[in-house]
């Protein structure tokens, strides 16, 4: 008898079929992977199991009996725990208060007893937590622990984790896997959602692969090659490897000199003495888990925040005190992390959004808008970057993530920037769009543009960056040629250990415990 069994699950949304006739079976104590690219339907399926979303068709069996999960509280009562990709935590409340809210009233009656339980359970599983801390003071890794401990306190029989490792350093991933193994040995089933093949092969017993809402295969990961797994995820038409030549930059374009920045925002991270150079004709990648100062750094480069004049230079010209439009005139192009609601105005048309950053060229004259030129520009972006939409009058929010991202990147690239800064360029984007975007970035680099990419996707950074570094706690690691930096080394940089040396070659994932920074990163 399986712990949980899904049969013929189907869920439709206006405009797409998120899940179609999906079958899934997990045994007690089994670690089962759900693999698929962005948009394949994994999150929706998990929400169905957890009762947040109701399926249109299909059945679910729990420990042999057919059930309907009425909602998260019911799921928790059954013993199903879920750790979301975007944490469902309340930042202005403490750890204990957060956990209390998801427990039934009777169990949360005494806050002191609960705090005791939190300390015991979190230590047992190697995920130490202080129940009195406010969640907004915790690092991302620590916040994930809260989510996990929350599930553990409820006698969990099935633990679902939705893309848990995208916000962790390689060392933190190790810790997480240890915890999961401990749980599975105790009889708890684990459903591990991911698109990272190496991790799945290292951790999971079985895997179900989803492609475009349907099951494209089942397998035992340890007995399947990475190529076979990838084929099941993306189909036969998409190229599996993108091989990009590494390049050497020419003269320096972007210079950041000893930049420090203190923010008034209590949720933000302060920057400490950052120095950085990006050369024309190269791609520099900055790795790092969210919340370590990337956003603040990018704001200072784009001009949305200003700093000392000489701390930011474009081709030796001091721009630190200039606002965005002045930096754009000098050749800056910027693709922010948020595409809807910053990079593009959701309710405005693609045509209007073209004007959002293109207004300094010949699209306007003496303050008047040349509507025909704007239309032509917008259409040009759509054509050159293969953007699928109802037309240039379509609202930005009606586009899929991948198409909107292509449009935004296209808008910047077609303005011939001298420096292009991209934040998480392929986050949440389907595989086809992701490949096109990376391809265009390489093309831009080869044409002589200086490119800076900030991302949490380490594989992507290794694929396209010529030089790489990491940011942690508002400080920048050393910068080196990508070919000379192992994943391990990068992981240590991401954890803030800038002086550690690795003695192994590139693909070694073993960690020398005595030299790594123990535990999660401290908050800023």
């Amino acid at each position, binding site marked *: 008898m399986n712990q949980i069994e899904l*049969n*013929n699950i189907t869920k439709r949304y*206006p*405009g797409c079929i998120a899940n179609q*006739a999906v*079958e899934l079976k997990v045994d007690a104590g089994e670690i089962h992977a759900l693999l698929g690219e962005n948009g394949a339907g994994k999150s929706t399926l998990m929400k169905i199991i957890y009762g947040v979303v*109701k*399926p*249109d*068709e*299909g*059945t*679910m069996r729990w420990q042999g009996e*057919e059930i*309907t999960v009425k909602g998260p509280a019911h799921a928790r009562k059954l013993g199903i725990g879920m750790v979301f990709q975007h944490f469902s935590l309340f930042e202005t409340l403490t750890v204990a208060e957060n956990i209390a809210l998801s427990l039934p009233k009777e169990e949360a009656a005494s806050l002191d007893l609960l705090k005791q339980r939190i300390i015991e359970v979190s230590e047992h599983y190697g995920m130490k937590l202080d129940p009195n801390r406010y969640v907004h003071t915790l690092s991302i890794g620590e916040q994930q622990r809260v989510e996990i401990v929350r599930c553990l306190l409820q006698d969990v029989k099935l633990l679902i984790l939705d893309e848990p490792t995208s916000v962790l350093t390689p060392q933190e991933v190790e810790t997480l896997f240890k915890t999961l193994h401990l749980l599975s040995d105790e009889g708890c089933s684990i459903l591990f959602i991911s698109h990272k093949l190496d991790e799945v092969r290292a951790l999971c017993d079985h895997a179900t692969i989803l492609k475009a809402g349907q099951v494209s295969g089942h397998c035992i990961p340890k007995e399947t090659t990475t190529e076979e797994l990838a084929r099941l995820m993306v189909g036969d038409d998409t190229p599996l490897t993108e091989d990009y030549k590494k390049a050497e930059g020419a003269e320096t374009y972007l210079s950041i000199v000893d930049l420090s920045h203190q923010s008034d925002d209590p949720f933000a991270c302060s920057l400490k003495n950052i120095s950085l150079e990006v050369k024309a004709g190269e791609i520099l990648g900055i790795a790092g888990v969210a919340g370590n100062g990337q956003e603040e750094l990018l704001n200072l480069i*784009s*001009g*949305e925040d200003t700093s000392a004049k000489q701390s930011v230079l474009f081709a030796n010209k001091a721009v630190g005190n200039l*606002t*965005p*439009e*002045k*930096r*754009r005139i000098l050749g800056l192009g*910027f693709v*922010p992390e*948020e595409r809807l*609601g*910053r*990079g*593009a*105005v*959701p*309710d*405005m048309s693609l045509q*209007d959004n073209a*004007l*959002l*950053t293109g*207004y300094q060229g010949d699209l*306007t004259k003496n*303050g*008047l*808008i040349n509507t025909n030129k704007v239309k032509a520009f917008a259409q040009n972006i759509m054509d050159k970057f293969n953007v699928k939409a109802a037309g240039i009058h*379509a*609202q930005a*929010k*009606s586009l899929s993530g991948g198409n909107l991202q292509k449009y935004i990147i296209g808008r910047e690239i077609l303005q011939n920037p001298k420096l292009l800064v991209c934040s998480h360029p392929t986050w949440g984007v389907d595989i086809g769009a992701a490949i096109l975007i990376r391809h265009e970035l390489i093309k831009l680099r080869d044409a002589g543009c200086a490119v800076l990419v900030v991302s949490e996707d380490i594989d992507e950074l290794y694929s396209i960056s010529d030089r790489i570094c990491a940011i942690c706690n508002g400080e920048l690691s050393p910068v080196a040629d990508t070919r000379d930096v192992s994943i391990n080394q990068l992981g240590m940089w991401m954890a803030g250990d800038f002086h550690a040396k690795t003695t192994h070659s590139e693909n070694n994932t073993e960690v020398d415990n005595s030299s790594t920074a123990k535990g999660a990163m401290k908050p800023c």
Partner: protein
Amino acid sequence: MLNITLEKRPSDSKVMSYLSPVFAILLTLISGGLLFTTLGQDPFHALYTFFISPLTDVYGWTELGVKVAPLTLCAMGLMLCFKARIWNIGAEGQFILGGLGGGYIALELMDAEGFWVLPLVLFFGALSGLLWGALTALLKTRFGANEILTTIMLNYIALNWLLYGVHGPLKDPDGFNFPESALFSDFATLPVLSDDYRLNISIFFALFAVAVIWALMSKTLLGFQIAVLGEDKSAARFAGFKEERLIWFVLLACGALAGLAGVSEVTGSVGQLNPYISPGYGYAAIIVVFLGRMHPVGIVFASMLLALTYMGGEMAQMDLGLPKSLTGLFQGMLLFYLLACDLLISYRIVRKPAARTISSSSNPAQA
């Protein structure tokens, strides 16, 4: 429960954004009819009295124009603010200050003669409104104070300032101690379009404002910046639009327009300063902006409808003996229904899928 639910549309329905005000008006009429019935009135006669009878002669239409002018001027100013998501509730206070400031100058120039008097008075009125708007802009940009609350406070302060004026320093010494100023001289009075009617040239101010602001919003970069600021502050920052300058611009413009409306009112149909120079035009203009879909043409039509509610209230009081607050009641209902119907722009009503029978016999052929 009803077997229907709401489903989000993939993108906003343009058709519904035009139909929504129509539905809202219909619902208001129906509710109004029901209300009249419960009051023992014949609903059709009452609705006719309220909405149709004011417009049965040319005089009625000119009277409509008398009210449309200040409403449109205020609404065009508010449109700029609301497009930028600056919730300026202070058009009422800016209107009053305009009347007070311009009126003060008119009283000072009581004995002056010449064609320069009126333009000067109008200028001071607009300036007074502009300064009142500037105060709000300062409080918001320099001190971060929420404009909804500050503008409402300023409305009350403006009203009390007017009351202070007409009860005290500006009171007409020959006026039998009524709280009102002397009547303005002919040189400080807006010329009427015809001697038979009260309609004056302020209607041209209003139409001119409509044309200019329409062009501004649709054809200029400034208008685009205002729209983006309102839609998405992050995007405006990202694009490098200067948020503070835009806030100042819309508040100053609105203050000036509302001030102009105020001074036009006191130098036009009212002819003096008294406590009642605004029957709530500043607040009604807010409804005009929403009903008119924040679009110049819509605003003109909505102004006409709201102006009609004022006249209808007066008619209902005279002919049917109903309280004048009927006007406010209808105005409030209109806005409520509009907001409810606006839902249909982003959502559609669908039938709930039939209760999912989680059957134990799943068809193996579908797997």
